């Protein structure tokens, strides 16, 4: 079932959690809502489920206006971050709960409920665990039971809040792949929330990047990563260097270096360059002179910090370990750098700051709620 979100707004106290969100989700899509803590992604997900009443706007499931439907009437499968399994019920009872609370006529018989529960357990590859209690399951198993429980009501859409947030790295990776496969099998329209860009890029058909209650960009994983629409998206997806440049007659000027662009901007600009788009070139070619400060070799990547000669600012560079230039790289080496791909945005007032701290994307602080619950 496709979902249409029209100008949805929600304010907590004075804090606008959703400041007018428009989005269309195709039937059968797997969508990631990606953003930092406080970006409104969880609020949007909860608004879709009806768990968070919205102040204004409209939510449509297919052609049905769901805006004023109660949670119960919406028939969405919601998987909570901490699973919210009923501790006093067995796995089978948890899964069958949604069937067992139906009204007299539509309620399946106990035997039928049980059959469905077992069937779903098989689907989530937990056959034989139906008599266990949630406390006897691992995190990954709980996650699957929660998913099976959500699927049991044959939901119009499946909503997952930080589905892998509480799991450790290894389990997280396995589950991610498995969820993708499950999605292909069931074909249910699925929306999940995450603050982990890697997770979003790897799993989703399309990614919705959110910040401060607004959608910054919607696109396929390739689009948002390669053609970030805003500085925020550039920042949030992957690491990035920020340089101060100037656009004159359609050309980017960077300390004497002149690079062709197709920008319509002119005047001072912020130049966003990914570390791997800052190529090492021969000393004879055009480029920016710099000195290597620090080199770190991790697996297939060589990461280095270089100091630009013209303004002493530091930039991150990244190259493959097989790159011939990588071999000789060590602190003190003089290099020449050429931005081969970059994003240009009109200069922001803060752009006097020339470098960004080297933030590893995974180090995005966890949602505050998590820690409180931790």
């Amino acid at each position, binding site marked *: 079932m496709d979902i249409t979100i029209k100008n949805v707004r929600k304010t907590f106290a004075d804090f606008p959690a959703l400041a007018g969100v428009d989005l269309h989700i195709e039937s059968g899509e797997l969508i990631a809502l990606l953003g930092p*803590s*406080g970006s409104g992604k969880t609020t949007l997900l909860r608004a879709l489920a009806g768990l*968070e009443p919205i102040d204004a706007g409209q939510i449509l499931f297919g052609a049905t206006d769901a805006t004023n439907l109660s949670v119960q009437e919406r028939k969405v499968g919601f998987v909570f971050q901490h699973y919210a399994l009923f501790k006093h019920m067995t796995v089978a009872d948890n899964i069958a709960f949604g069937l067992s609370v139906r009204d007299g006529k539509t309620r399946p018989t106990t035997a039928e409920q049980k059959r469905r529960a077992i069937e779903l357990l098989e689907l989530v590859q937990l056959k034989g665990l139906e008599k266990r209690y949630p406390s006897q399951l691992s995190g990954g198993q709980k996650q699957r039971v929660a998913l099976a429980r959500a699927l049991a009501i044959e939901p119009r859409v499946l909503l997952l809040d930080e589905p892998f947030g509480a799991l450790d790295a290894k389990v997280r990776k396995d589950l991610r792949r498995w969820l993708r496969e499950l999605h292909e099998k069931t074909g249910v329209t699925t929306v999940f929330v995450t603050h982990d860009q890697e997770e979003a890029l790897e799993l989703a058909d399309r990614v919705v990047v959110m910040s401060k209650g607004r959608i910054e960009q919607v696109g396929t994983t390739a689009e948002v990563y390669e053609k970030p629409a805003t*500085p925020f998206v550039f920042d949030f997806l992957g690491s990035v260097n920020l340089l101060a440049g100037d656009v004159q007659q359609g050309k980017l000027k960077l300390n004497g270096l002149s690079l062709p662009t197709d920008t319509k901007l002119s005047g001072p600009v*912020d130049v966003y360059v990914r570390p791997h788009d800052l190529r090492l070139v021969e000393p004879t070619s055009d480029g920016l002179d710099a000195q290597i400060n620090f080199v770190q070799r991790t697996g297939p990547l060589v990461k280095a910090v270089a100091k630009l000669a013209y303004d002493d600012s530091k930039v991150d560079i990244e190259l493959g370990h097989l790159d011939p230039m990588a071999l000789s790289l060590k602190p003190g080496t003089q290099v020449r750098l050429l931005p081969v791909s970059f994003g240009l945005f009109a200069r922001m007032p*803060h752009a006097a700051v020339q470098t960004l701290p080297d*933030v590893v994307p995974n180090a995005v*602080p966890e949602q505050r709620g998590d820690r409180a619950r931790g």
Partner: protein
Amino acid sequence: MSLGKDQSLQDPPAIPAEFGSGPLQRRNAAITEPAWVRWLLIAIALGFLSLFLLLPLAAVFTEALRDGWGTYLTALAEPDAYSALKLTLLAAAIAVPLNLVFGVAAAWCITKFEFRGKQLLISLIDLPFSVSPVVAGLVYVQIFGAHGWAGPWFAEHDIKVIFAVPGIALATIFVTFPFIARELIPLMQEQGTDDEQAALTLGASGFKTFWRVTLPNIKWGLLYGVLLCNARAFGEFGAVSVVSGHIRGQTNTLPLHIEILYNEYAFAAAFAVASLLAGLALLTLLLKSILEWRYADQLAASRRH
């Protein structure tokens, strides 16, 4: 959009979490009742509490003043009432400090160390709560009474325990035994042993560690326990009744004095003395609530509301 990963990501701005974090903030249509149901339930609950708790309290003060302020003050100024008050204070002054030392010691060994039988020990400390006060009084009569095991020995040495202050103090200790330990154990369990270990690695002695690290951490919880312990010590009736002998002006505590007055149909006087204790109970509740509101984070989790 202001620049900088550093601002937007590493240090989330001071905004509320994405949805209500505390139970009080739940204004969620999905998990609450319609307003009329809420207000109906609130009305029933408050009506019940008023009828059941506040009315008896009001009755105490009304009855106490039924015959006017003159009678009220006379009842309180009576020598027997005065000596009963003194004895009540004395019993509490003996019982509370002893239970305080015990409570701290018990909480220390239970929360800072692992040993076999710990759970049993905790249960045994709670035991006096489930023993009838009358039985508590009886056990001391059996030991120290004229026909008790130790009775003759004490009589020989001219030490009076039963029908005297020591017996009353013992009975009071018994019934207030668990209060402070019970308050401290969960609190110190939550606090763990990190602070103490840090102090020790910095060269503090065991006693210094307790005095300067542990005690400041538990002081409000300790005060809370003392408050409850004290309230019970002032009000204990059953256990003290058994060991006291009801000798007017000598072995009567305030609650026993109330009984005597009441049985003599001196209702106004009985309620006058009762109002004194009721006032004390109200003071206890007030102090207790202040502790709960202001120092919630420094009390055991179950006390935070």
